[in-house]
């Protein structure tokens, strides 16, 4: 069966390594924070100016001066730090943040990502996404494999205006885990009960299937 959003978040959480500073985008990526494996220390950065972001506040303690990049009220953990937006993006462009997880509308087989604009329909702006994808070494995309119309979001080439060029490393969807390689989308894992054929049918871009595709453990 295909994973739900929580399942995608759980699988991405397995990519975290001890000592990582991580930036999580809005949507499914935000959920990743709930599933960090035991014994691993991670610090979350939010680009509006906090390192050491904690969970949502207990009802009644929310603070308008303490929000994340999704404008949600949050808390600061012991050891947290606040800073201005230029320093925040210094951390990001300067590659001090080890991993970035973000959502996408489309990913191309060369690692291009589109997630900020649908011409004529949605023009909300890129926020920090272009800065994040331009610099980070380790970009993981969390998204559904197909859109609401059932069309593949893993493409030969993006059809929407792109956010960054050849920047995505890994894609985790409701169906599969795929690495971006010079040859295309290399299938690493399938969701429980999903076949390689299911993934192939849902992938418009070039899919490479090696001998050691395994089932996700979540």
């Amino acid at each position, binding site marked *: 069966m295909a994973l739900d959003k929580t399942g995608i978040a759980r699988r991405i959480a397995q990519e975290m390594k001890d000592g990582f500073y991580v930036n999580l985008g809005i949507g499914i990526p935000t959920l990743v924070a709930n599933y960090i494996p035991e014994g691993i220390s991670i610090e979350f950065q939010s680009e509006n100016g906090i390192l050491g972001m904690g969970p949502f506040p207990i009802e009644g303690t929310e603070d308008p*001066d303490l929000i994340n990049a999704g404008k949600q009220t949050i808390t600061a953990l012991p050891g947290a730090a606040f800073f201005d937006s*230029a320093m925040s993006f210094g951390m990001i462009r300067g590659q001090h943040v080890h991993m970035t997880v973000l959502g996408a509308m489309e990913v191309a087989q060369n690692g291009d990502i589109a997630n900020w604009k649908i011409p004529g329909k949605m023009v909300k702006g*890129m926020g920090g996404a*272009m800065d994040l994808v331009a610099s980070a070494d380790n970009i993981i995309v969390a998204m559904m494999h197909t859109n609401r119309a059932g069309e593949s979001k893993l493409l030969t080439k993006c059809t929407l205006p792109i956010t960054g060029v050849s920047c995505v490393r890994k894609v985790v969807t409701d169906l599969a885990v795929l690495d971006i390689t010079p040859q295309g989308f290399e299938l690493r894992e399938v969701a429980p009960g999903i076949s390689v054929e299911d993934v192939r049918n849902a992938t418009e871009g070039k899919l490479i299937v090696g001998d050691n595709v395994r089932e996700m453990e979540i």
Partner: protein
Amino acid sequence: MIRKVVKDAKEAIVGIENAMTCMFGGFGLSGIPENSIQAIRDNGVKNLTCISNNAGVDDFGLGLLLQTRQIKKMISSYVGENDLFEKLMLSGELEVELVPQGTLAERCRAAGAGIPAFFTPAGYGTEVAEGKEVRWFNGKPHILENAFEADFAFVKAWKGDEAGNLIFKGTARNFNPLMAMAGKITVAEVEELLPAGSLDPNQIHTPGIFVQRIFEGVNYEKRIENRTVRPKA
């Protein structure tokens, strides 16, 4: 000590004129100069170019100046929380320049730091790069971005003193210190205005040299845009 304290927002915005470029600190509704925005609305000045990460919501923040059609052009990174904004943009009443958030911050910082332009990797290969010079450094492409120019910068701090020194609170800091550096005239409104000597010089975020006018704001609403909580145990 150089005199910077003004009575209120009305006095703080003296000299603002039609078609000026103004910066507004804040991220979402956090750390926005509420008093200055209301004074600009009451003043009625028009055709402003506003540089701000966001454009407020329909009835608060810079949304107030959109309602009154005082803004000709917005320069922002994300404007998705405002229906009126979208309507004005699609009808062509409002010009919009969307800028990657880190580039927006750096263009403010550069403006205040005497750096006329800089190269950044953000936006290379996208619409944002159209018409901009590309140079390769360390094997990676970068695009040339210019510093902003702003007639006024309106910022909001938690505490300030009569010398114009500012301390921000939490994530309400965001763009405020950078815009404070960038304004030809920087107006700081603070929740608490203290005599010089009251703030520890070790803890100052924005030194007073960047602030030309300062006042203690009133009636802060500090609206929360997206209240998320855990239930009490």
